[in-house]
């Protein structure tokens, strides 16, 4: 088991997949010189044709990745969530819709690595956490890793999956260290984390917290802190939102009777809203208290730290929500 930094885990996954399959290539802005860090050393190993710096034309190159995927390539596109608005049409009208529209003729193994930089003064234009919008539109698999090992294993799955995938990389985790097993240690010989399998990160019996992306780590802190008070918290990391492993959540709520969802997205029509609505329908009889949604306030991300820190779910807010469910 090696201690690996989140961003290195990304780099490992890309490198290994590019070695494994010559149809895998990567494109994005300033990736040769690895401005955002994840693409370090790729140019040297794989050359200019498979490590493509693009003009600032997200709609154009998002679409080019789609076209390449249709004819046998497996592109990885690096971008930020906030630049996806510019390329939205290709993501929705083409990537998400093509296969169904063409009666299954189109196969699009394209991966978008969309980094969410938030929480460090990036302001409204650079802090989007937009996965709930993409959940509303069928056709794209949505991945939200919360630690280096999942980041690596899920990215590898994404490259091998035959459907379009967006990996929402939580920028607050880029420096996170975590254990990433060496391939040799693994029975299957490599780290590939399947889609649609939630992970129970902490087992508990009093309340369930479902965390999304970076919020999983806050939930773990809450669980550890509350354990000292004798409160037993179960923490679930869905890891992928499309597909979403609802059974693990429903089973947990059946056991605990209480649900808190911690989601860094804006709270209206968030992943938290969706999960709450599933449990309110399918797990209703298990619930012993109101569901608590702890998501970002419905405002834009302010630049100033004095306001920005008020926006997101954090340990204090999640703890308060857990207590609310226990008190009611």
């Amino acid at each position, binding site marked *: 088991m090696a201690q690996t930094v989140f961003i290195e885990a990304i780099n490992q996954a890309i490198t290994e997949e590019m070695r494994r399959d010559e149809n895998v290539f990567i494109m994005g802005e300033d990736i040769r010189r690895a401005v955002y860090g994840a693409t370090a050393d790729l140019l040297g190993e794989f050359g200019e044709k498979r490590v*493509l710096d693009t003009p600032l034309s997200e709609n*154009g190159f998002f*679409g080019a990745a789609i076209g390449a995927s*249709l004819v046998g*390539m497996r592109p990885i596109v690096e971008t930020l969530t906030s630049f996806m608005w510019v390329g939205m049409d290709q993501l929705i009208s083409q990537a998400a819709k093509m296969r*169904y*529209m063409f009666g299954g003729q189109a196969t699009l193994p394209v991966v978008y690595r969309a980094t969410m930089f938030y929480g460090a003064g990036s302001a409204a234009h650079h802090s989007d956490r937009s996965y709930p919008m993409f959940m509303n539109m069928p056709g794209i698999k949505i991945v939200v890793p919360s630690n280096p090992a999942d980041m690596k294993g899920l990215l590898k799955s994404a490259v091998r*999956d035959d459907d379009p995938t967006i990996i929402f990389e939580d920028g607050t985790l880029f420096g996170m260290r975590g254990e990433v097993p060496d391939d040799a240690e693994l029975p299957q010989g490599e780290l590939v984390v399947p889609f649609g399998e939630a992970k129970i990160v902490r087992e508990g019996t009093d309340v369930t917290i479902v965390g999304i992306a970076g919020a999983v780590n806050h939930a773990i802190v809450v669980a550890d802190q509350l354990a000292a008070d004798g409160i037993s918290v179960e923490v679930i990391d869905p890891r992928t939102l499309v*597909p*979403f492993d609802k059974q693990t959540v429903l089973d947990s709520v059946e056991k605990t009777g209480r649900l808190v969802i911690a989601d860094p997205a804006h709270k209206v029509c968030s992943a938290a809203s969706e999960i709450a609505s599933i449990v309110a329908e399918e797990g209703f009889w298990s619930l012993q208290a109101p569901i608590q949604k702890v998501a970002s306030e419905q405002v834009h991300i302010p630049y100033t730290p004095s306001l920005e820190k008020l926006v997101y779910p954090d340990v204090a807010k999640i703890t308060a929500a857990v207590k609310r469910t226990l008190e009611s």
Partner: protein
Amino acid sequence: MTRTDAGGELCVTKATVLLLAARIGLLQKPEGLTVDIDRDLLLLMLRRMWMIRNFELKVMEVHAAGEFTGAAHPYIGEEAVAVGACAALEDTDYITGNHRSHGHPIAKGGRVDKAMAELYGRIDGYCKGKGGSMHLADYSIGILGESGILGSSVPVAVGAALAAHIKGEKFVSLAFFGDGASNQGALHESMNLASVWKLPIIFLCENNQYAVTTSYAETVAVEHVSDRASAYNMPGLLIDGQDAIAMYEATSAAVARARAGEGPTLIEGLTYRYEEHSLGLGRVRRGEYRSQEEIDSWRKRDPLEILEGSIISQGVATREECDAINAETLDEVERATDFARNSPFPEPEELFEDMWANPIPQP
């Protein structure tokens, strides 16, 4: 005011096309102007043009009769553009298209039975009835699919060309789009990408001079869409879109350039839509946005007459042979319509099929 005020005279002839091509260095030998097209190819072009014409006439008939609903955008009058362009391609080359979507796949060699069944929303349609008129596709012969969102399929075509570039393969890609769509940002980004990467792609603008009711003179800031090529450092060719041979020659030159690794070309086929924008858009009254004279003057340069004229006058085939081709396609379209009518609608279970290549549970 439209660009055809000068009495229906087009500003291009085949000679100018080739001159243009020579001027911008697309053709090496300006003296070798006449491209040899063999008889089979000429007759294949004629067959495909009749196929489109007869298919569209049938579509108008059965749509009016209410055999299916939903929008459909007839390609009548523009047949030479797609057929001439696609005649320059192989089955292993790729095309993408738009909402005016029947001509491109037929021109590329697609099957009219599966196309018609798709319009009828039947399980034997190209997309099992899920796509409909605006989303015909045939991945077995490089038809990557028509797009109802304008400009949106152009970056996709760039991507197919990018794959050829990365893998060092020889296939090319061709994107059809209209004069209206040429104002989409996607076009700009696509042409720039293709040029900086020298991708093997042909941007094929079907300038039928209107976007629904709006003349391109009111919305395209330059005189010709092809003038924009210079902004991307690629050749731009303005071609007589009623002349299938001219379209074929220009596209062949662009394909040769693409396969040679020299990069993209923008071709504008100047043409005309005979019918209204879309079946069912009754509100769009003809007289309000284009004159009967204009329509008539364009109809005088019918692409089928022009091609048959060349074929017959050059002794490639006789009038009777040409008529036979027309008749055969008429027949095939009839059979296709019966095929469509007899194909069942998709069963309810089909609803959830084809969403995913690696399926996931329904939420």
